[in-house]
């Protein structure tokens, strides 16, 4: 028998709307939604790319800096969302000298940027800039999600420039059984799509990600928030996350075409069939130490797609770090703050 009563249902609906209305005052007083909190300075710029160096938090940071390469999808401030949810801050506190690439927002003039431009020019120039500034031959690289895939390709092509490679929620094998995005990409004519619309609108990516779990991500999530609308701090945290989720840059058309075809549809990287700029990308060339962090409940990058890296790299010093959580929680959850930056820093320090 149903445990619900008609009068209680009515009270619950009215109570729900009351909370929503009360929350209007909380929301109206939140002000601007600030993101990216840790002090940093611009050190290099090329086209729309900006390379930042974060201000050190210890007197004598580690000698070999770490370059963070984020995905082109969404914005990199996810790694430094707020004071108490910042992977960057965690790394700085551990004494790591941190640089980060901000890809900016591509527009129509960037439509013909290719994977070759991103890997062999943009990332390479940033690495060279840091090497020069620190008088080093090679540095440490941390790639996140799609940025991890690009960092892996970069490392395979320029192993002499990377001392240690860290990958985080990074797809390597794009056609594992749990990869829903890969299945969705299967029947899409990407050539036709890019030839028609040019750059791929951020809205397409937003819609794609939301439609992976439509009821939870567009209904239930907001119903949950109604219960915390009297808590200004919690609301501001929620607002920051929302801002990040919907802050989706357009994707340069050619880059998108190549990424979807070569990785999602043809799975070239893991098959040793990928070429970038006419040069073969072979994972066996990655002989330096590798630290591979993945999320055990990742619905965007299934764990088996990430850990495929271990079987392919040439390195004898390969370590995996499973984080119990999802693709987003790995940056912003309280446990992630306690576990992930120290794990990266300790692993790096043991090898510097």
């Amino acid at each position, binding site marked *: 028998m149903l445990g619900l009563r*008609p009068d209680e249902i009515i009270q619950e609906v009215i109570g729900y709307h009351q909370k929503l*209305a009360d*929350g209007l005052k909380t929301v109206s007083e939140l002000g601007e939604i600030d993101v990216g909190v840790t002090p940093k300075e611009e050190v290099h710029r090329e086209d729309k790319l900006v390379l930042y160096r974060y201000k050190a938090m210890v007197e004598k940071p580690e000698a070999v800096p770490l370059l963070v390469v984020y995905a082109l999808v969404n914005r990199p401030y996810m790694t430094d969302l707020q004071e108490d949810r910042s992977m960057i801050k965690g790394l700085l506190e551990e004494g790591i000298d941190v640089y980060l690439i901000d890809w900016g927002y591509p527009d129509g003039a960037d439509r*013909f*940027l290719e994977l070759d431009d991103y890997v062999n020019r943009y990332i390479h120039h940033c690495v060279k800039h840091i090497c020069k500034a620190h008088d080093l031959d090679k540095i440490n690289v941390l790639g996140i999600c799609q940025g991890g895939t690009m960092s892996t390709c970069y490392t395979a092509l320029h192993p002499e420039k990377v001392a240690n490679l860290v990958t985080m929620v990074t797809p390597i094998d794009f056609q594992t059984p749990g990869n829903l995005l890969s299945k969705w990409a299967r029947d899409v004519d990407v050539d036709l799509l890019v030839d028609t619309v*040019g750059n791929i609108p951020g809205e397409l990516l937003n819609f794609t990600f939301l439609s992976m779990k439509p009821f939870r991500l567009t*209904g239930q999530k907001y119903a949950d928030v109604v219960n915390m609308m009297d808590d200004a701090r919690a609301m501001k945290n929620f607002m920051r996350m929302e801002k990040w989720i919907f802050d989706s840059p357009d994707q340069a058309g050619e880059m998108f075409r190549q990424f979807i075809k070569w990785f999602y549809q043809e799975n070239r990287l893991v098959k040793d069939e990928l070429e970038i700029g006419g040069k073969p990308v072979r994972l066996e060339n990655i002989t330096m130490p590798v630290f591979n962090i993945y999320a055990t409940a990742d619905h965007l990058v299934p764990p088996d797609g990430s850990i495929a890296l271990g079987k392919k790299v040439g390195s004898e010093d390969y370590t995996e770090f499973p984080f119990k959580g999802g693709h987003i929680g790995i940056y912003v959850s309280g446990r992630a703050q306690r576990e992930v930056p120290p794990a990266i820093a300790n692993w790096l320090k043991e090898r510097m």
Partner: protein
Amino acid sequence: MSEGNEWSQAWLEAQRQYWDGLFDWSKKVYAAGPEAGGSAAAQETLADWWKTASAALPADSREIYKRMFDSSQSFTELGQTFWNMVRDAQSTGENWRDSLEESLEGFKKMLQENASQANDAWSGFAGGWGFGGDAWQDFMRSLGQSPVHAEDITGFNAGEAWNKLLGTPALGYTREWQEKVQQWVGLSTEYAKVSQEYAKLLQATNQQAVDLLGRRITELAQKGESPDTLRGMYDLWVDCGEEAYAELAEDDAYLRAQGQLMNTLMRLRQHEQDMMQDVFGVMNIPGRRELDTALCRLQETRRELRDLKDLIEDTGVDELRTEVAKLRAELAAIKGGSAPDAGQAPAPARSSTRAATPAKSAPARKAAPKKAASTTRKTTATKKAAAKKS
């Protein structure tokens, strides 16, 4: 407090009073029973309230709050559905399962009706969750919204006769243009058809989700359990919706339909672009095609230029310049009769001095010490100054 803030507070207070009044009204409406149509009326009034109240919010927050407001619609509608269900179940006593089944059938019918009246596939599927309309339309708009609405075309009989008509050869001076228009109608019709197939698959999932909900409620009842709040029931409904959708999302038929939807839409858009390009061509106005050609060539040139710069840098031209300057200084010193300092030993070329670094060891510092280069610069400057003095 600034004047602006005072105004904002006053504005919010006014909204609050309006809201309180609205509650009193909605309580009366609900007391009469949601089945009397009060729920829909309340939603309309809430939407009106939102239009005015949202003006007080900062831009960032307004968008996000709107999403919460939209999602409240599904909670309210579910409240109405379960209000009816529970009331019927209570009145039938022992036969609550029959009553539940009947209510769920009604729920399915309602979802089907909503879907048939929806403007697009996603509004018909998940519109009740606050998802659909906006997200789908933003997505479609971003792809360059077509002037054709699939729903408008569904009235056409896209059967054999229609295809025959479209296949009629174009004649006369404007035959090329006629042919393009015929092709456009054909592509539009194809898109409408594919769009309908896609919508059907999504709608079927809603029906499966309701069946799943019925099974879950019965399973819980067999264990003597039941969600005892509307929120509990809402969560159960979300779980059922996600479960049914997850099955669909990996289904071959859905993958094909999704791909076809995107591909037919793109074919239609591309054809429209071609037609526009023709019009621009007649007026001698450059269009997207010319711009793309120019941008592609520009990108290629920039790429070559950067690669050349990299090549120059990587072959150690900077180091060679330093080396030449140093040698000149040494030559000048020899000509002047004084030997260069021992500390001025030529810095070896960068590429030839780098030690091969073992894979797991810390990266080596550059072999060419910077000190030597700076000493060279200093010496050169000193020599120049000396020459100036003499």
